[in-house]
């Protein structure tokens, strides 16, 4: 409705705005097609057992992808998430062993709580270092986190002499249950991996934070126009440090969950996962130039990558094709987005 009767200005149609106009929506469409094709071609794909496995597998990277998406929205990047997963898992299992060796067990569950807290604190410190370097020292995020990738992986090897560590002590059972259990469901419904439940809960929190808090709008504003955000009084440095800390902590949480599933924390845990995670975020619609990205997109990207891997396994195709295919999808997703924005804007 134009006050001055602007006949050439009309409301944008519903499919040109919101979720339907986003790259995430196109990728979701591709995912649905892929799932239908797989269901028709492989009788094992839609079995309860396989669905449960797929949910478990994408949850292993999806929590870290949520955090990485936050960083990407601010036009940053975090290459250190894979290393952070490893060091966090290592710190957690080392803490559990030390507490066991020291015989410190004041109440049931204490070893579990303290060691997970130690692990996540380690992740938080890594994030704080990344955020400080990017926000305060104004270092380029790519180079900074490339450095942290190496530093943190190195520390993991130093702390373990290159060997794996495994959680031990009175809370070992609790640790394994909380990280890798599957909740039995009634007949006909796939068993729910706990990691999937954490993922959904965290994604909901992230959705609320991004869309319904001032902090979320500041995250988007920094990605859209950092100078503008600064001029309007947004505390840019604090928000940036915050997203790097959240990214590291989300990666750490994923690392702990993976180590629970493996039953140990090898020093090379999650090696090169940062690339898969960033790929998932980008496929899900996060824009490396900043300003765009959602929790739903991050999860959609992770599901797509896992469904492809799973499909290749079921089709008895060499699973190493996965990397090649994921690469093609990244380029295709970015290309489709380019076509779309070229047409409308």
């Amino acid at each position, binding site marked *: 409705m134009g*006050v001055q009767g602007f006949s050439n200005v009309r409301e944008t149609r519903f499919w040109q705005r919101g979720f339907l106009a986003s790259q995430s929506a196109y990728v979701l469409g591709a995912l649905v097609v892929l799932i239908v094709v797989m269901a028709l071609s492989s009788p094992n794909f839609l079995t309860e057992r396989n669905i449960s496995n797929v949910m478990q597998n994408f949850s292993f990277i999806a929590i870290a992808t949520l955090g990485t998406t936050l960083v990407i929205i601010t036009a940053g990047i975090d290459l250190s998430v894979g290393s952070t997963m490893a060091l966090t898992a290592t710190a957690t299992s080392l803490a559990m062993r030390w507490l066991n060796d020291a015989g410190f067990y004041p109440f049931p569950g204490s070893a579990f709580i303290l060691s997970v807290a130690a692990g996540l604190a380690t992740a938080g410190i890594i994030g704080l270092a990344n955020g400080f370097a990017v926000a305060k020292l104004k270092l380029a995020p790519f180079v900074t986190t490339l450095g942290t990738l190496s530093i943190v992986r190195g520390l993991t090897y130093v702390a373990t002499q290159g060997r794996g560590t495994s959680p031990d002590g009175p809370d070992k059972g609790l640790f394994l249950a909380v990280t890798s259990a599957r909740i039995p469901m009634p007949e006909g419904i796939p068993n729910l991996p706990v990691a999937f439940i954490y993922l959904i809960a965290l994604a909901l929190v992230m959705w609320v934070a991004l869309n*319904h808090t001032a902090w979320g709008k500041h995250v988007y504003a920094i990605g859209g*126009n950092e100078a503008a955000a600064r*001029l*309007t009084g947004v505390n840019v440095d604090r928000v940036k440090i915050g997203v790097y800390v959240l990214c590291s902590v989300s990666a750490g949480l994923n690392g702990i969950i993976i180590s629970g599933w493996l039953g140990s924390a090898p020093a090379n845990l999650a090696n090169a996962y940062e690339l898969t995670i960033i790929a998932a975020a980008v496929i899900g619609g996060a824009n490396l130039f900043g300003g765009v990205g959602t929790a739903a997109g991050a999860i959609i990207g992770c599901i797509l990558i896992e469904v492809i891997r799973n499909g290749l396994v079921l089709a008895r195709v060499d699973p190493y094709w996965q990397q090649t295919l994921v690469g093609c999808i990244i380029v295709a997703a970015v290309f489709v987005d380019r076509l779309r924005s070229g047409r409308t804007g």
Partner: protein
Amino acid sequence: MSLLELRNISKEFGAIHALNDVSFTLDAGEVVGLMGDNGAGKSTLVKIISGIYTPTSGQVLLDGQPVNIHSPGEARRIGIETVYQDLALADNLTASENIFLGRELRRKVGPFRLLDHAAMKARAVELFEELKSETRAGDYVRQMSGGQRQAVAIARTRLAAAKIILMDEPTAAISVRQVAEVLNLIHRLREAGIAVMLISHRMPDVFETCSRVIVMRRGSKVADKAIADSSPDEVTALITGAKEAA
């Protein structure tokens, strides 16, 4: 007593004297043009008033009281708003999100304070109606014309009932029709009793909207006179240095 007074403001960047002993006043409901060639010190002057730079020497007075404006947030708090040349808008947010950026309205939901989208949108719609702009509060800035972006930037200054609005080249790089829109917006600000400082290269804009013009050359004020007593030719001469002072 003037709303805003600058007394003997100088600003040096190392060996460069960007501003030399500049003084002027600004009254409520007055639209003053600030003109000068590139590098004459216009932007530096605006940045001092809006809290981005601190002067090397001199004093800024607001309502007769000396003030120390050390950040854009501080400037906004005491009633000085700036519309920047590049507009300082986030393309990926809507008009109303941009208007409220950094001072969002929130409501309590249980223990949390979440954004009050409806209230912000309603207020944004009101602001655009006041400005008689056809800009829609829910549209993304990336889809907007130059004039609409200008309206968003100006609407933002109206949020906190600013007393002084500094506008840096608001009509640069927009179409003729949009220029008319923006000049209308400035008229409306004046009617609301707001002091506007219009930094512009465009002679017609200044002569159409301003009651007074200040001309800068090489960091010094060379003229400060009523529009009625001046002419575009004289101002051009002052800007280029063909005429020393007036």
